[in-house]
């Protein structure tokens, strides 16, 4: 016999003002199977919860319905109260008579009648609920961090320092990311590499961190606590275990004709290279797309490499056996992890898309990232600000903010967040190096919201004499040796034309182009700009919709270093929380498939958005295959119910939302439920 207790909440005036709670309580008391029908001002409060607990024990209830707010608010609260009173929490349901009733209707009579119907529906459902236990899944206490920039480095160190192993995969030959390219960082003007390289070394030396560089994540399968990852290690053609990093090979490789990615094209590198002097690991790789040995073989249509084409690096390598190995092949390595942090970072917009600024046409129009390389002591000009065209020191520089950003016509509506700050920084670095130089900044707004940020931008103007002009630049063209910058100063209302020696464009921060492929592999959503989506923009900034996959850094949205580091530590904390238990508990609202009635059409397998349906072989005692049926993996299933709706043989059902429960709820709308003994 069902013994259902119904608790009706006034929620102060929220429900009580529109729904006649007294009438509702009386009507509910008459419903079949209801042994207690009571109301309370705020059922979610401590005394409210106590009321539930006492009533459960006093009346030995078999089920509870709380008619109150949305289950998204308080289902855990009431299920917790039931649990504490000894009643299985899945025998407790909520009827949402607030968001779905009192808050959206004004007619009291109709609202009350609707509330009565809603409680009857949930009561009929609860009568058919069964006790469910949370599903426990084992957790592999190893984490994968994708991306070796500052966010990836921070996350890896935080997790490793908890004692868990971390696999860190970085696409380029060195970790460090964009932060390694910066000259100084705002607002302290700390030398970027000086604060970053100690962390990079810590990562390389940490006993718990397994570092892959020149590698990418090729495949990810599995689910939270149990991911199977395939790492694609590109052939470096140098055996990193043998190589001592002596650098003899670097000196003989020729020609130095490839635009350096690290210096954003401002200098050239060789095919055998280390991206920058402070690289970690400080061991070279051979870029087979530009190495003479490989390109000449490809041109001649040969598969075999001819040592007569080159091989200088091999000749000079002092190690025995030789660290240079032209026969090295790409490798695919399997790693098992329990959690994944995506920290793939950003890229800078292609400035030539804004043709009116002449980037790519005029050498002295450069991007902010290129200016960082000029200003950096380890850069192509050893920290001296020089014009790329003729090497002369610019007597003035025009900086343009919002190039691409905040510009729907160019396809980017968002603000890139860091440009106002780094432009102010650039004006200051320029002034500190070229004392008589004059910086001009064309801006729309100044966004300096961080700690000490506003004071920093004021310093650029008040102490270092940068001239800020509020207006946009319509065109840049070259007249003899100078760049004519045509802009507007909205505060004086006058057009402005500046003859500039150099122009620096603060170009928009974009997500990496192929990151959507990685996201699809992981089951993470992304927006129209390819920035990865967090689970909730306000309250869950480091989690994603895919359980076990977390985000850190600029791959989620444009951000500066402090925020990237914070987010990375946040993601690491989530991972540490996951790893703090040997077993991970999941909600038991999962699908199950009756293998006796399954006809093996596998519509469910096609329909499942999470890949939770598998093929299961049923064998006899001798090991012969009888049949293959569909099987729902309870560790992956998210309880969406799509398989239930497509199953042709009615073999699939969803715990907590069984067909029986659903049809009883529906029939209860018209009071057509048969009174069955459903205890």
């Amino acid at each position: 016999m069902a013994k259902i207790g119904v608790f009706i909440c006034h929620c102060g005036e929220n429900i009580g003002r529109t729904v006649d709670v007294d009438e509702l309580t009386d009507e509910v008391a008459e419903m079949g199977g209801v042994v207690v029908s009571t109301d309370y001002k705020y059922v979610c409060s401590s005394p409210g919860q106590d009321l539930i607990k006492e009533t459960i024990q006093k009346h030995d209830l078999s089920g509870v319905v709380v008619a109150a707010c949305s289950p998204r608010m308080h289902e855990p609260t009431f299920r917790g109260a039931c649990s504490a009173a000894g009643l299985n929490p899945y025998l407790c349901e909520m009827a949402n008579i607030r968001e779905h009733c009192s808050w959206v209707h004004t007619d009291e009579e109709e609202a009350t009648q609707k509330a009565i119907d809603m409680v009857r529906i949930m009561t009929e459902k609860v009568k058919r609920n069964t006790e469910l236990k949370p599903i426990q899944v084992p957790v592999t206490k190893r984490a994968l961090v994708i991306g070796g920039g500052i966010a990836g480095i921070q996350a890896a160190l935080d997790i490793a320092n908890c004692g868990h192993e971390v696999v860190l995969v970085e696409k380029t030959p060195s970790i460090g990311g964009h932060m390694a390219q910066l000259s100084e960082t705002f607002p302290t003007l700390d030398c970027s590499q000086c604060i970053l390289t100690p962390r990079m070394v810590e990562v390389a030396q940490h006993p718990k961190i397994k570092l892959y560089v020149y590698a990418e994540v090729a495949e990810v399968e599995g689910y939270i606590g149990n991911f199977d990852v395939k790492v694609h290690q590109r052939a470096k053609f140098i055996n990193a275990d043998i190589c001592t990093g002596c650098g003899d090979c670097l000196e003989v490789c020729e020609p130095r004709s490839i635009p350096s990615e690290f210096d954003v094209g401002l200098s050239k590198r060789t095919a055998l290279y280390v991206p920058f002097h402070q690289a970690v690991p400080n061991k070279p790789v051979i870029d087979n797309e530009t190495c003479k040995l490989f390109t000449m073989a490809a041109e001649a249509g040969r598969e075999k490499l001819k040592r007569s084409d080159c091989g200088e690096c091999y000749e000079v390598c002092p190690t025995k056996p030789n660290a240079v190995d032209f026969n090295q092949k790409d490798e695919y390595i399997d790693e098992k992890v329990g959690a994944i942090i995506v920290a793939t970072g950003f890229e800078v917009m292609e400035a030539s898309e804004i043709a009116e600024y002449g980037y790519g046409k005029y050498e002295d129009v450069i991007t902010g990232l290129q200016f960082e390389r000029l200003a950096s002591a380890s850069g192509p000009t050893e920290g001296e600000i020089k014009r790329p065209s003729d090497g002369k020191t610019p007597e003035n520089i025009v900086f343009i903010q919002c190039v691409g950003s905040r510009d729907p016509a160019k396809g980017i509506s968002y603000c890139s967040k860091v440009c106002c700050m780094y432009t102010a920084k650039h004006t200051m670095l320029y002034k500190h190096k070229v004392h008589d130089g004059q910086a001009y900044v064309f801006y729309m707004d100044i966004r300096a919201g961080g700690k000490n940020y506003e004071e920093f931008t004021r310093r650029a103007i008040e102490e270092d004499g940068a001239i800020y002009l509020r207006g946009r630049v319509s065109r840049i063209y070259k007249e003899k040796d100078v760049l004519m910058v045509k802009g507007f100063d909205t505060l004086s209302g006058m057009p402005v034309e500046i003859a500039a020696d150099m122009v620096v464009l603060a170009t928009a921060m974009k997500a990496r182009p192929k990151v959507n492929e990685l996201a699809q592999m992981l089951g993470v959503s992304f927006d129209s700009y390819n920035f990865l989506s967090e689970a909730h923009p306000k309250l869950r900034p480091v989690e994603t919709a895919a359980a076990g996959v977390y985000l850190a850094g600029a791959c989620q949205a444009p951000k500066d270093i402090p925020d990237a580091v914070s987010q990375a530590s946040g993601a690491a904390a989530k991972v540490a929380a996951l790893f703090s238990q040997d077993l991970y508990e999941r909600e038991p609202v999962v699908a199950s498939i009756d293998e006796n009635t399954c006809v093996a059409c596998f519509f469910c397998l096609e329909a499942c958005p999470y890949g939770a349906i598998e093929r299961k072989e049923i064998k006899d005692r001798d090991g012969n295959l009888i049949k293959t049926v569909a099987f729902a993996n309870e560790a992956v299933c998210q309880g969406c119910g799509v398989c239930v709706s497509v199953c042709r043989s009615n073999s699939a059902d969803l715990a907590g939302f069984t067909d029986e429960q659903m049809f009883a709820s529906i029939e209860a709308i018209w009071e057509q439920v048969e009174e069955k003994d459903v205890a």
Partner: protein
Amino acid sequence: MNNDDTNMKQIGYYPGCSLSGTAIEYNKSLTGIAPLLGFDLVEVPDWNCCGASSAHALNRKLSLALPARVLAIAEHEGMDSVLVPCAACYNRMVKAQVEAAENENLKQEISAIIEMPFLAKAKPVSIIEFFSEMDSETITSLVKKPLEELKVACYYGCLLLRPPKLIKFDDCEAPQVMENLVTATGAEPVEWAFKTECCGAGFSISKKEVVLDLTEKILRNAKSEGADVIIVGCPLCHANLDLRQVDILKKNKDINIPVLYITELVGIALGLTPKEVGMTDHFIDTSSIAV
């Protein structure tokens, strides 16, 4: 389009108001070179004014109906394309055709206003599109007087390429179509920074100083990049750069640079005389060219 026995390709032709008046040399040179290039220009019968700036400044439907009527007549005459040499007429024609093609209701409305069926099928063709569809080798083979060592600055103005979402032709920030044509004639196109900069347009009448100021910058840049001549594809561009240059020269004698219509330059290259193409009638002396 129906070809007749002489192997000439027929194309609809809309001279518009300006080519009958201020831009008469444009008309002269274009109708002069068309047969040499193998085209028979068939003027759209009973054509009306496209409305230009006045119509779109006053009444949207009027501004679409006027050019639409011209295109509707062209359709009725069996013309697939209509060559519209004036850049403003061209811009208005494209606007009417594209908007009607994308909006069935608007198409019906316009048909009702002009009292004839409008299918938005006839395609308006600009002068630069007209040339770009010809094989450059063909043009070079027709050249009788290669304009070697003549440095030409190509001025596109505003309406030939913009708005890019409407016109969808070449690159509105860094165009090259005219330069390709110049190369085909044997002359040397000059890369300069003011190809698409505003000349002041209609302010030529209402606020002349603005035009003098903006036009001077255009002329100065062309001259400083070594151009011997500027070519244009628009009657108003020509008026501002040529007629108004007279006033500019009063203040700045060094800027003297002749301005030709694109069709005049092609005409000279194809062997027509300066008088035949009409360039002897311009304000700034053009005798230095085609010597």
